[in-house]
């Protein structure tokens, strides 16, 4: 009995163990060197990643509050991998940071929150997981303690998060009133598409739209992304967004399946708005962080297009894309973060002539951006192709056409960065930088994922074999 519970919760429990370990280290008398702590956390995250490959049977715990199956384990493992990459990349930043331990405690709390959120089988559990992750995230976004901009970002983030949580809670309570239950399975049976239920659904949807920064609920994104430390920005744009997408698609495909006709049209609208707005704003950005922020808004639009497919291919394409997105976006953020930590330079103009001094970093950046833009043979091409292919399954080719043209628009701003790196020059280019071992490993993992993943068809096959749809 106990063994079963522990094994089913193995990923969450190990994250909790790390958190408590760090807590004891912090309050304990002995002062450890920061490097030791960093290595320990990275190692344990790696162990957790390995644990994710351990197949264990599906189970339902705590009276249906907590579900686990192969798909959820895979999704959690994807998030865990992303966190590990971010943690490796942050090494040179955290090494000299006074509060590295606190950083990890907060970061891993959010990760645990996401794990519980994804696994939830009940609206209460879902909300608990979401809040467990949101509140530490706001603290993280003000982690550049000396910078005013960082605290401003945190302020904006907490206000908008609170607002979206409020919407979500209002929706949940209305749904409870309409169906008399909080359990996902029973809600699905009691939905009949009445106006009242629809109202509750719209509120819940708005809450989700805030978290995935879909237009018109995206206004907080750019400022928060810009103000936060880059590591946190990377985490926000990849892990946080990925986790919310995982639970979003799950609820849409199972709980709100009876309302599929309603949400299909809403999602198409949201998707088009998100893509177009994200891309148009990204066109004129000169700061790389803001550019990546808006590009990540646009990417949400593409993911929404995949969700509208509402088939197994739709679910599989979203999960596959998020995996690809972790590699490509973290590759790009990794380079920006590394250069910013070393030299403090973050605008596109600063990157002029980078190739002459740092060829390796330049190629990592270029391949990551190509992958984000969806250029073959990088994995991003396959990710985008499958998303839009799933979306096209409904026969709405105008919508898919808009999405395809948006890929062309997005190519423009990615190529602007490439142009600066490879073609332009400046009087004071960024000097030659030496990459330490751990960030180097992280870069290699990203590069490997970007280059090889599309050519290995079995990754998609495996995800497809687990995915859900109707």
């Amino acid at each position, binding site marked *: 009995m106990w063994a079963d519970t522990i094994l089913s919760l193995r990923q969450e429990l190990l994250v909790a163990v790390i958190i408590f370990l760090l807590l004891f280290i912090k309050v304990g008398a002995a002062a450890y060197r920061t490097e030791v702590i960093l290595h320990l956390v990275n190692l344990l995250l790696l162990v957790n990643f390995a644990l994710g490959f351990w197949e264990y049977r599906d189970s339902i715990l705590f009276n249906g509050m907590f579900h686990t199956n192969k798909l959820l384990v895979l999704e959690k493992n994807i998030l865990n991998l992303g966190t590990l990459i971010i943690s490796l990349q942050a090494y040179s930043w955290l090494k000299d940071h006074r509060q590295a331990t606190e950083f990890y405690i907060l970061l891993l709390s959010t990760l645990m929150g996401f794990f519980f959120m994804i696994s939830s089988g009940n609206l209460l559990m879902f909300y608990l997981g979401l809040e467990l992750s949101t509140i530490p995230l706001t603290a993280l976004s003000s982690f550049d303690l000396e910078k005013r901009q960082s605290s401003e970002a945190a302020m904006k983030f907490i206000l908008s998060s609170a607002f979206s949580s409020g919407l979500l809670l209002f929706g949940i309570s209305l749904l409870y009133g309409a169906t008399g239950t909080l359990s996902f399975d029973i809600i699905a049976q009691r939905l009949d598409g009445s106006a009242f239920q629809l109202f509750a659904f719209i509120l819940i949807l708005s809450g989700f739209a805030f978290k995935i920064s879909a237009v018109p609920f995206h206004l907080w994104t750019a400022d928060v992304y810009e103000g936060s430390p880059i590591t946190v920005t990377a985490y926000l744009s990849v892990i946080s967004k990925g986790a919310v997408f995982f639970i979003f698609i799950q609820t849409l495909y199972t709980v709100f399946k009876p309302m599929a006709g309603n949400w299909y049209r809403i999602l198409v609208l949201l998707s088009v708005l998100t893509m177009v707005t994200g891309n148009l704003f990204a066109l004129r950005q000169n700061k790389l962080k803001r550019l990546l922020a808006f590009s990540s808004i646009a990417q949400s639009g593409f993911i929404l297009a995949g969700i509208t497919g509402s088939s197994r*291919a739709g679910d599989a394409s979203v999960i596959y894309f998020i995996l690809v997105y972790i590699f490509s976006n973290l590759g790009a953020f990794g380079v920006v973060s590394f250069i910013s930590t070393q030299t403090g330079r973050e605008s596109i103009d600063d990157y002029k002539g980078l190739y002459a001094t740092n060829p390796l970093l330049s190629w990592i950046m270029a391949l990551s951006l190509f992958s984000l833009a969806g*250029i073959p043979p990088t994995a991003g091409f396959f990710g985008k192709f499958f998303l839009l292919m799933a979306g096209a399954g409904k026969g709405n080719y105008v919508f898919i056409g808009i999405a395809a043209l948006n890929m062309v628009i997005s*190519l423009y701003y990615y190529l602007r960065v490439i142009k600066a790196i490879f073609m332009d020059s400046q009087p004071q280019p960024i000097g030659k930088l030496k990459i330490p071992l751990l960030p180097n490993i992280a870069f290699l993992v990203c590069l490997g994922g970007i280059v090889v993943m599309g050519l290995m068809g079995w990754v998609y*096959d495996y995800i497809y074999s687990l995915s859900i749809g109707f």
Partner: protein
Amino acid sequence: MNLSLLVLMPLITAIVVLFSRREGGARWVSLTGVTVQLLLSFGLLILYWKERAAGSMGMLFEYRHVWFKPLNIWYHVGVDGISVAMILLTAVVMVAAVLVSWRVQSWDKEFFVLLLFLSAGAYGFFLSLDLFTLFFFLEISVIPKFLLIGIWGSGKKEYSAMKLALMLMGGSALVFVGLLGVYYNTGGAAGPYTFDWPVIAQVHLPVEAQRRFFPLLFVGFGIFTALFPFHTWVPDGHSSAPTAASMFLAGISMKLGGYGCLRVAVSLMPIAAREYSPVIILLATIAIVYGAFATMMQKDLKYINAYSSISHCGFILLGIGMLTRTAVMGAVMQMISHGLMTALFFAAIGMIYDRTHTRLVERLGGLLKIMPFISTIFVIAGLCSLGLPGLSGFVAEVTVFMGSWQRTGEAYRIATILACASIVITAVYILRATGQSIMGPVKDQQYYGLADATWNEKLAAVILGAGIIAIGVAPFWLSDLLNIK
């Protein structure tokens, strides 16, 4: 023969180039790689002839490997006569392109790696029998062009590179939607949805779907081959590119579009092709005539060749649009002829520019006295362009005209006559450019000290020239090879 070897060979060469340490090692490794590739392509040709002589029908040397099982996406390659001809063309142009890039100074490794990568995309495209594979290779061949033009180009290179990349990606976005439309109309009674070309050719797509998706596919591929009014990337892209990239761009990349129009749009959707044929012919005729007149106004040699490419690629589209057997044959011959001719032309212009540092017709003059070899190949390319009998341009254009005349109806006849008449304009601009830059007095005393072509440049020109003459003198082997139904 294992066709995947043709895609892998450039990639392997590129990897070896990346690890070559010696000064100038990159170009020797690349030359070895592309020569082996040329031999492989000739080997393919001979094997193909043998198989055909033995009576094999359909696609040959097919190879299938499952890629994404749940979506029924396969890596599927195979060749027919058209693909063999295009592969041979690519191999020839690549050898010439590497030879003329002998003196690339800065970042030579990167240059050759990108060029080889680009060619791998083209080989894969011509081999593909699965539409997903085809699209994959089509898009592969866009971004290396952006980098090649932007880094090693001249003039307003960044602008041109960006314009080219965005317009070509726009084209492939249309192709993408079209392909998805094809995919989702293959299911039903015939089995699961598929991207497999031979299977789709059997199913006969519903007429409604053909009407909807034919324009997307045709225009999408058409952008690659300078379909009017989407031709604007051509002049800027070609003239800003470094010589080897111009050769590849005009010689091979523009043919990707023509090949795609033929292989995907027309052959999978014959009913829609017949319905839209007047529109295609109209646009092609405009491109031919407009391209020719626009060329007359140009003063820069590269712009002259770029605009004349718009006009010449119009013949490809005209031939495809006419839909008669002869016309389509002529279109494919024009693809090959134009590929060789324009590569030779750009090579000659590149050699002239390397020496005189100008491409303006008015500043050149009397080059024949100073560099006879380069001037001769320039003249040969020019004569091929204006359709002199005995060179490949004549064969291809006459075949297109004869095929077009077979399509009865006044409008079609008028289009054919207009296209024929454009040859006169071609003669005007070619002869004028040749007369001013090659013949006449030497305009600048500094030109007297300039050297003629080096061995590598001569070799490149001879290879391309041999192809032009081989087709011009004995076109039957090519038409036998193509054997279009």
